[in-house]
């Protein structure tokens, strides 16, 4: 029944499509079942899980997007840090964030436990949104508005690192997100503290 013993370097003679041995069949079956599990986990997480990259995705003109972001920043501005406005929109609001070489605009101040519609786009080239220290990463592609429903679960002072190469100053591109706790207390008062404890140096 078995094929004549041969290596992968020899041409195979005659009928070679013989049935596989049981051990091999079992492994193929196990691997196939595991592949189904791997596949099922993704729709399952959309249904039951809390973290999905779905969002609402639309095309947008970069100039129009930036104008909308600036208007948003002016409307809800509560302060500024290093010339970048700190913006505190009401819970449930549409929040706009723009990546431009080499900064993130504006600084967002969000409330813990409240949901926001966070729009992210780029004004110029590709950027990468990487929320530190949570390690939440999204691609930022010009002409596309990526709107994600986000609910910050803990207060703190976060950073946005750019993790897509955007030019020679790429490594200087850092933004800031402040999450205040449910009592409305600002964990971050912007004086000489560290990430996780609030504030910047």
């Amino acid at each position, binding site marked *: 029944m*078995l094929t004549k*013993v041969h*290596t*992968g*370097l*020899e041409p*195979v*003679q005659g009928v070679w*499509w013989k049935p596989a*041995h049981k*051990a*091999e069949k079992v*492994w*193929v079956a196990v*691997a196939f079942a*595991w*592949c189904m599990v*791997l*596949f099922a986990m*993704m729709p399952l997480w959309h249904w039951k*899980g*809390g*973290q*999905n*990259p*779905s*969002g609402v*995705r639309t095309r947008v003109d970069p100039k129009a997007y930036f104008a909308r972001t600036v208007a948003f920043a002016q409307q809800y501005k509560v302060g500024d840090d*290093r010339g970048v406005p700190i913006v505190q929109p009401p819970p449930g609001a549409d929040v706009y964030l723009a990546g431009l070489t080499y*900064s993130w605009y504006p600084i967002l101040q969000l409330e813990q436990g409240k949901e926001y519609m966070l729009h992210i786009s780029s004004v*110029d*080239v*590709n950027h*990468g949104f990487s929320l*530190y220290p*949570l*390690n*939440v*990463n*999204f*691609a930022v*592609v*010009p002409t*596309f*508005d990526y709107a994600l*429903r*986000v*609910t910050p*679960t803990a207060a703190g002072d976060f*950073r946005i*690192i750019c*993790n*897509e*190469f955007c030019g*020679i100053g*790429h*490594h*200087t*591109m*850092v933004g800031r997100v402040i999450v205040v706790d449910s009592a409305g207390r600002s964990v971050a008062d912007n004086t000489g503290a560290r990430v996780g404890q609030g504030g910047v140096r």
Partner: protein
Amino acid sequence: MTAAVAGAAPGFRTCPVTGRKIDLQAERLIKFNAVVAVVALLVGATAALLLALTRWQAVHLLPAVWYYRILGVHGMNMLIFFIIFFEMAVLWFAGTVLLDARPAAPRYGWFNFGLMLLGALIVEFMQWSGRADVLYTSYPPLKAHPAFYLGIIFFAVGALGVVGQFFATLTIAKREKTYTGSMPLVVYGAMAAAVIAVITLLHGAMVYIPTFLWSIGVIPSVNPQIYRLLWWALGHSAQQINVAAMVAIWYMLGALTVGAVVLNEKVSRWAFVLYILFISMASAHHLLVDPGFGPAWKIVNTSYFMYMAVLASMVHGFTVPAGMELGMRLRGFTDGLFGWLRRAPWGDPGFSSLILSVVVFGFFGGITGVTIGTEQINIIAHNTLRVPGHFHATVVSGTAVAFMGATYYLLPLVFRRKVAFWRLAQWQPYLFAGGMLLVETGMTFAGSFGVPRRHWDISFSQSAFDVPFNPAVDLFLAIMGIGAIIAVTGAFAFILIAVKSVFFGESVTSFTRGVAMVGIPQGLTHPPVHAANVNELNEQLHSSKGGKLGPTPGTVVLVTVFFLAFMLYYFTNWKLLSFLWRIG
């Protein structure tokens, strides 16, 4: 060209070791492609050292401009020039030597080689001179000099030409009946790689021709999201050429070093077909957190249609070691579960490369790749150092190590030279693979803390806001840096051995079976021979008397360990993901 060995047809020589007919034109094409591949490896490995010593924050060697420039050089030389030139050599080898056939239109082969070389040189010049600081991916709207895109197009057209010649060579071999029956599995695997190469290079044309036209101002803009989609249909599929070529080489090295047999042709060939069928979906797992595509598209495509290509790799991950185990058992190494492994030729660099390639590719590259390529888990992995941590385990520890192992056999068989610095050659696979394992571990763990890839300065000394990484990150980056020094030493050792052997090596025309010889891998001086009653033994091992675990019980244990590690890593990552903000 006239120096045909007596007894062979004109234009051929007969290999004194294997008795194969080797076409002299094809042999020269193999040599030239392999030599250029090694030169590209030298450039890429030098770049790798400079990059690692920059990312190792305590050393921080290069200035920012040169870091990004060299990063682009590293990507092009390693992922394109080294690997594809070597694959061209593999195609010429598999199409002609393994089938005793003549190559189709060798002159056209030289034209294609020249075109590829010209394209590569243009790209090198553009990158080194700072006219293409757009990294390997060159995402628009970042723009490079038009000649950069043109160089890549030249290279791709040349490569596509060689792939076409490979198919023509197969046709000729079949028509001229240079072999009987079905083509060997190794050639079949190379053919799968060639089919994938066609798909890949067509995507390359689809992405780089419009981008070139945009760079010279003929078309006003390139949709950045469509570019990302098509670019990765080139960029990832190119890696699947590597995988198919690497698996073919696994089967080849297994046969040469330990007399590995093909367990079941049907199963192994189907696994190659699965690669071909689902590869064009591979682009998707680079775009899982991109704004241009919806969840349904992402889920179907990132899973290569329900992970059918992963299934293929898991099948090869069983059949390759099982073939080695069965081959060893049929040679009489039957003691216990792992006697076949203990008695294997660990001092043969062809074998050690093979086993290191299989193990690191499977355990490290495979498991991390499937996990971070999951739609939601990608949120905690995209563009962090976890990504290069994964693909160095596949492309370097997997493909490059397998190619190095194959080189130790090609040197005596095709170049007819002894392997120079034989002692060093015996250590080289361990040195290189060991160093790479440190690199991959360091990158993966640093990435888990959110350290970005392709980033000059994670101390953010020139940024408006500070980002104080966990101090553990410094440790992991140091591990990466030290690993890189070891691995690059291993790569340089390989280059030294290859160059010395090819250009200044001691020529070898024949050797006696059973007599060990310095500079000749054991699989050639002591070719693995199965027991005389091999078919009877095979029946016995396959029968129920062979035990519950079948003819290859050691492999069953190994894949079970692999499967448990896979499940553990995969579900741990889901758990980590669940700690984040609610996002949707």
